[in-house]
């Protein structure tokens, strides 16, 4: 692939540009997550390790795995030079300019991991026809879609979290698997698993894939498993990698006998089925159906109003609540649904592995399945599915269409995170920027292969604009603002849930039909 000399500089230019843009928003609104991380800086810096998971002066207790705590500890060493005040545990909601500057810059710097991972992903992209124009090359489009991802930008740099850092490791492990460097991929994945345990959702994909393709070194000619080719050495080496990372992270706490406490902090099942703002997943639809049925039941006289549970599911508190008509959902039930949803994808990878790409597809399915059915899902978790899907999107037309659908809907569902008026132009502008770019770039990539979106899908996406105008412009000026203040959130959540569920089903259909066609091709 002969590249002209000047085009090699485009990646650093893109990365620098987006980093500079991130620096502009240092003074923008930040959510309570800012205080969360400040608190963790204080805890890890000022208290001995044995107190880290017991500390609860602040309501934002440490609920990420130990490796992230070590990361915060490292950051706190640098924080000392900015403002010692932020490292005092009692300084709740401390937000001096130096604190803000330090924390924002730490996110920007941590994103260096992400930038490196994106670079690695770009090298794995298959380019069938080498386009002369830089803007039409798949690796360029992928770089922009990942580096300038709208969701990551607003969640990390405005709302405040460290997702770029975490996704960097995840994408790096994906890239390594695509490059067939499996042990390294496993290493990066264990690291990210110990940084944020939400990645447990995609662990089954890793497990099954590595077992199938790494531990069993050969396939039969018809693609099925050759049981004899099991390599215990590989299994052991894999286990060693994972265990060593986990030991490094959890080790000290196991030694101090604090494991149950740590686990209880990591998995707080006391929180309700849905977050205060419902993530657009299956349970949102379930809740709405339940509410609708209960209202219908009351109207038709089938149900007694007094017998209905009073707690509002859409109130700001995250308590457990009961459903009125449909069966209530408990954590084990949600887990079961999630596992059932993941099973077909895992089965596909086991039965007909199609190399790294098949693994990636399975990963996306698992992430999306867990988003759809898990307990207490945050809407930010949709990024776990959107980012890996970008890699697939620049290579195949069908994936591109599904990516557009999922990404646009998922990104829109993040809008309620930034609810202040000053940030309104930012989120609209950034969203428009990303959406327009993704549509036009992907269309250019696959020009001549038909349109990417079904007309109904396009209509749905246009409907997002209407929902936005309704929720943020019309509704606040209407009389229902006071009586039914939760309606915009409800509408956004349900509308996006429809889109996400549709993408989920369609991705599955595409996965299964693809396997079937591949199987028939081989026969």
């Amino acid at each position, binding site marked *: 692939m002969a590249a002209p000399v*000047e085009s090699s*500089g*485009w990646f650093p*230019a893109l990365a*620098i*540009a987006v980093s*500079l*843009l991130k*620096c*502009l*928003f*240092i*003074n*923008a609104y930040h959510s309570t997550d800012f205080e969360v991380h400040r608190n963790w800086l204080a805890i890890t810096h000022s208290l001995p390790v044995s107190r880290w998971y017991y500390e609860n002066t602040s309501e934002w207790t440490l609920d990420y795995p130990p490796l992230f705590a070590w990361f915060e500890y490292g950051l706190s060493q640098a924080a000392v030079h900015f403002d010692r005040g932020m490292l005092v545990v009692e300084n709740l909601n401390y937000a001096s300019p130096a604190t803000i*500057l330090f924390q924002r810059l730490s996110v920007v710097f941590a994103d260096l991991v992400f930038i490196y991972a994106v670079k690695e992903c770009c090298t794995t992209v298959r380019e069938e026809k080498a386009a002369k124009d830089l*803007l039409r090359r798949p690796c360029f489009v992928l770089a922009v879609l990942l580096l300038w991802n709208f969701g990551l930008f607003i969640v990390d740099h405005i709302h405040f979290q460290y997702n770029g850092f975490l996704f960097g490791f995840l994408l790096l492990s994906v890239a390594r698997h695509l490059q067939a460097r499996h042990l390294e991929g496993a290493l990066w994945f264990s690291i990210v698993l110990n940084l944020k345990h939400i990645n447990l959702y995609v662990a089954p994909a890793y497990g099954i894939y590595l077992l199938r393709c790494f531990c069993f070194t050969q396939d039969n000619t018809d693609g099925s498993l050759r049981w004899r080719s099991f390599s215990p050495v590989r299994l052991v080496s894999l286990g060693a990698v994972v265990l060593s990372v986990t030991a490094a992270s959890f080790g000290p706490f196991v030694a101090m006998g604090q494991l149950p406490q740590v686990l209880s902090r990591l998995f707080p099942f006391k929180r309700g089925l849905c977050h205060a703002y419902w993530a657009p997943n299956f349970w949102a639809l379930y809740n709405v159906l339940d509410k609708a049925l209960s209202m219908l039941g009351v109207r038709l006289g089938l149900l007694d109003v007094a017998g209905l549970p009073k707690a509002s599911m859409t109130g700001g508190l995250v308590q457990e609540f009961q459903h009125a008509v449909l069966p209530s959902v408990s954590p084990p039930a949600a887990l079961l649904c999630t596992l059932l949803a993941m099973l077909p994808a895992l089965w596909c990878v086991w039965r007909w592995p199609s190399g790294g790409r098949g693994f990636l597809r399975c990963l996306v399915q698992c992430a999306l399945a867990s988003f759809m059915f898990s307990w207490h899902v945050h809407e930010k978790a949709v990024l776990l599915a959107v980012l890996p899907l970008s890699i697939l999107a620049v290579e195949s037309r069908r994936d591109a269409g599904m990516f557009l659908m999922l990404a646009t809907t998922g990104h829109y569902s993040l809008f309620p995170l930034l609810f202040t*008026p*000053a940030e309104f*132009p*930012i989120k609209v*502008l*950034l969203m*428009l*920027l990303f959406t*327009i*770019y993704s549509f036009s770039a992907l269309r250019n990539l696959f020009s001549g292969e038909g349109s990417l979106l079904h007309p109904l899908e396009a209509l749905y996406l246009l409907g997002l604009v209407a929902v936005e105008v309704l929720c943020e412009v019309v509704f606040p000026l209407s009389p229902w603002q006071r009586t039914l203040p939760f309606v915009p959130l409800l509408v956004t959540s349900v509308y996006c849930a429809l889109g996400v569920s549709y993408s989920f089903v369609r991705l599955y259909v595409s996965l299964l039909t693809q396997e079937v066609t591949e199987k028939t091709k081989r026969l």
Partner: protein
Amino acid sequence: MSILLGVLVRWGVSFNSYSGAGKPPMFGDYEAQRHWQEVTYNLPIQEWYFNTTDNDLNYWGLDYPPLTAFHSLLCAHVAKLINPEWVKLLGSRGYESPAHKLFMRATVLAADLLVYIPAVVLYCCNLTNGSTNKKVGTLLCILLYPGLILIDYGHFQYNGLSLGLTLWGVLGLGLGWDALGSLAFSLALNYKQMELYHALPFFCYLLGKCARQGLTGRGLFSLVKIAVTVLVTFALCWLPFLSDPEQALQVLRRIFPVARGLFEDKVANAWCSLNVLIKIRSILSSDSQFYLSFAVTLLAITPSSLKLLKTPTFWQFKLALVNSSLAFFLFSYQVHEKSILLAALPVCLLLNDLPLVAIYFLQVSTFSMLPLLLKDGLLMPYAVTSLAFLVLGTHLLSALERCTEAQLRLEGYRRLAAWLPAWLPRLDLARIIRRKFYSSLVLMVGLSVASVALPPPAGLPDLFPVLVSTFSFLHFLGTFIYFNIVQLSTPQGKQKTL
């Protein structure tokens, strides 16, 4: 999409602090604009420019022409709808709140969206050469010019409106719609009197064009059409003030404050820099200062204007705009450092043709405003936008590659060099300019860091602002000479196509 990015960056900068934030009793330009809204809304037109009990001219009296006042009136009406507290007469002095800041920033954005940005887009689409990619690259670079963004959205002013109107004027002239162009420019003049810096090129270009078409017949007709347009525009803007000569005179007195001295603060022009060596302000009397600056300015703009009169092409016009505004900036009376924006706009228009020098100049112009930006607490946006502009500019416009002598339009030097005696060294100007660019960048970064990090020595409290302004002055002078050479050495018969 470039528009979206440009707007996004502007709004991002607007998060930061503004001029005079939290600094009673006088605050800053932000409070000035808010005060004008208050004055224009509550007082009758006759009192706007006069010193009355309700309108204390010492507290940010109106000192821009009438169109600014009308614009403030419009904003005030909107403000009244949202929150009357913002424009309550005498009661709203020093009013500061997040909602109000949002409102004021929004007014700047609205003005930009309506006037400046469309002008830039149209200019790049119609009046620049090159492929679509090149045009978009130029558009992005112009929209991301840090100086304008920082002053309008940070320090707080409405330069986008006046510069936008001027740009519409340039567009009009470029596309051959002379009357519309002059209409736009007259509006710009009525918005900010500093647009006079651009007035001479407009005048010479139009006069030259009409002369070309023959002073009798079509030429005269166009001339009359333009003159009538200008006069009518002025009349319309000044209508409320023409009823009483005293009104008009008072307005003139407010917008041309000849009593204020040769310069204020540290500004990167000739007089301030000269003052470092020879204390001009104390030597000469106020009147002779005025006459001196008048004479020197006139001298500086004469070559460029005459050349434009002789060969009224669009290329010459653009160069003349640069030369004229730079001449006024360097040598005129009572110049503010923000006036460098008036020179920056024409240089932006030349980004496509002379990328290296344009980017160089634009970087230095932003740098020259550093002391002002530091006072407003705009260090981070300054650093970010300057870096972004530098990276994008050199990347998108391949500035560093396009700097052979021919491309720098220095054929004139070549011809001059042929006359010089053989023993004088032949300088490779292209390499010199490139080296100077790099070294200047290093110096600028160094000075910026030093201004922030190091406290000035005890005996020289103004050391850093003075260093910044002298550095900038030398660069501006160099740029002035360069552009003059380029303009004057363009061969007579060469008609640069649009």
